[in-house]
């Protein structure tokens, strides 16, 4: 028995060392990965995301706001920090980490919609894997995501359990955080869901107000933007009035202008949408140009 226990322990030790080595090797590889979602984090950590104008939000920020178009009209540098599948609780951690490694922006375009103030965890968790042991990740992200004990304390486990092939499956390279989606209209999601509801989580709302207060105190120009979505969603949205009352109250409190494209014509034509809540590439480019011109009229830009 003694021999068995010693040899088994030795084997487990060797396996643990091997897993540590694999963890380090794969983490280093992903720290230079040029595809989403790791590319965005790599750019943040390398300081390559520093910009005059920063776009904040969920997937609608990520696919609607083209930095190239904003830059060409506003003569500045824009970076899109939009994070897919994420309410503000996750956006806030991303912003805080951004602020640790990149310069303070002059303007933040905060995309707002009916799910901004909800609470999300777990989606595309693998994007955090390569930065898992960084202090700010351990403080701002890991405790709030659905990581298990094994994910946190066993080397390489998070990669192996998720599946390494799945991590490398996506070969999509955002440009300055933005992707234009060239996909045809798919109304399935719309047909499946009978109603859409404005959701507020108290913790997320508290974080949102804190974020607005901080950026206001730092002199960053915050602008709320409601991007176009499919008109049927706007019509079906439960709590729409409540949503606008809340955003308007916050806007008034922190002197934040609101640019509302909720009823823009882009949302009435499925040629500009790839699903009920997202513009396709053509739609997002038209929207970005409209937005840029409206920002220019407000005196935003000319930082270069």
């Amino acid at each position, binding site marked *: *028995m003694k*021999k*068995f226990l010693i*040899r*088994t322990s030795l*084997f487990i030790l*060797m*396996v643990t060392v*091997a*897993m540590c080595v*694999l963890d380090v090797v794969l983490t280093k590889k992903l720290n230079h990965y040029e595809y989403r979602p790791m590319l965005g984090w790599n750019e943040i950590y390398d300081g390559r995301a520093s910009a005059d104008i920063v776009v904040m939000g969920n997937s609608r920020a990520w696919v609607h706001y083209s930095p190239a178009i904003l830059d060409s009209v506003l003569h500045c540098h824009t970076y899109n920090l939009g994070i897919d599948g994420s309410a503000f609780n996750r956006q806030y951690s991303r912003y805080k980490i951004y602020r640790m490694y990149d310069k303070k922006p002059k303007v933040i375009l905060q995309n707002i919609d009916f799910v901004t103030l909800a609470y999300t965890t777990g989606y595309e968790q693998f994007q955090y894997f390569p930065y898992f042991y960084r202090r700010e990740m351990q403080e701002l992200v890991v405790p709030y995501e659905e990581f*298990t*004990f*094994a994910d946190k304390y*066993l080397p*390489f*486990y998070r*990669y*192996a*359990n*998720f*599946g*390494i*092939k*799945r991590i490398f499956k996506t070969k999509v390279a955002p440009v300055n955080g933005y992707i234009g989606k060239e996909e045809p209209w798919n109304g399935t999601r719309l047909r499946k869901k009978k109603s859409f509801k404005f959701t507020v989580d108290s913790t997320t709302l508290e974080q949102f107000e804190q974020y607005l207060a901080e950026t206001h105190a730092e002199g960053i120009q915050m602008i709320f933007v409601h991007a176009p979505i499919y008109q049927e969603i706007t019509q079906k949205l439960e709590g729409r009035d409540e949503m606008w009352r809340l955003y308007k109250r916050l806007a008034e409190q922190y002197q934040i202008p609101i640019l509302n494209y909720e009823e823009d014509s882009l949302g009435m034509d499925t040629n500009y949408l790839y699903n009920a809540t997202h513009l396709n590439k053509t739609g997002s480019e038209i929207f970005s140009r409209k937005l840029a011109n409206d920002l220019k009229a407000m005196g935003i830009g000319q930082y270069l």
Partner: protein
Amino acid sequence: MLFNSIEFTIFLPIVFVLYWFVFNRNLKAQNAFVVAASYLFYGWWDWRFLLLIAFTSTCSWWSGLLIDRFRDSGNKAKWISGGNITLNLLILCLFKYYDFFAESFGRLFLGGASDSLLLHLILPVGISFYTFQALSYSIDVYRKKIEPTKDIIQFFAFVSFFPQLVAGPIERATNLLPQFGKTRTFDYHTATDGMRQILWGLFKKIVIADNCAIYVNEVYANFEDYSGSTLLVAAVLFAFQIYGDFSGYSDIAIGTAKLFGIKLMRNFNVPYFSRDIAEFWRRWHISLTTWFRDYVYIPLGGSRCSKAKIIRNTFVIFLLSGMWHGANWTFIVWGAYHALLFLPLILMGKNRRYRDTVAAGRLLPDVKSILKMALTFFLVTIGWVIFRADSIGQAWTYIANIFSPSLLTKPWHPDVIHYCHLFAFIALMLAGEWMHREDGNVLQMKRIQPRAVRFLCYMLIVVTIAIFNPGEGNQFIYFQF
């Protein structure tokens, strides 16, 4: 809990340490601990399942005692045995087949499936396995093959022993029950052999089966969109998926049992090296096929009766075997398909041609054996298409589409590099099993010296499992049975 889960990785060493260091001084206490650990393992899925297994175990144990008590009282023993069999099979049928037959009845006679007829019972994990295992005890007591045990804890340990509880091997009371009746002593070589077998089982399950599943699931879900060549590749990959999954589980179960000084029966004996269907069925899911042989086929007369009865008996066991797998007509048709393949062999008296291992004592088989193995594998793979399909219609369309002109086109490959890896691993698995087809212990690697090099080989397998785990936590296929 799954064998390839973090919960099991924590559970197993704790149970191992307690088994050998705390409860080893007293056999009864050790058996009671086995029951407690096994019930914890099983209850992890759903604690309600425990009531059913406890009930089944109690009925079978008690019937064993009653059969022995009334053995000399006319037909009472027979009635008790029959009653126990009927009760356990009724429970199994209720959970497993009631909704299927009610739905089929509704479709046939009521013009459509009626929800009011259905019970929507959750199928307890492993019910087919432990029910058959418990039944084998009472039947063997009736046949005087084994003395009934008065020790209920010993019996509960036999039925619920966690390594083989949910997906076999289906143990015989004559093999497993006595092992719980005597003191187990720790043996270093058995335990290390067990660890190697667990490792090999994990390799087959995670690297082979789970990676095959990605391709197979995609193709089967959209089979009408794919070429004949793609469908054929998916069919072959499913053959390896189900083998890797099921034999992998059996290896983990047998290896785990070895850690506790318990010897379970071999459940797979390199079935894809079979030269005909009869040999395949002597090598695939051995515990189930021998169960049906000993408790159904032979009592019906086996092959020592008229041709008509041989045909009847053959169809009965293959149809029952198909039905055992689940409540779907596809399993019944799969059983019938194999019956049709088996029948000519048994009618011509050629079903026992290949009792030896192919190319015994030689490195490579001859051309004739290769062709026979290839043909048998092909026939089995076609059967797996029926097994895997959601309906008979889908199975038929799938097979028809394989043999369409698109069979000669290039198969679909979303990620050619990944599938090169997969085919390489399948080849490695087959090579390993071929080299050890006679001793059945792929990772023993006695030829590799020194020990440090063998250690490194095992390390490489662990690293391969870690890197090539496709994630998504795939369940073992046979848990659904």
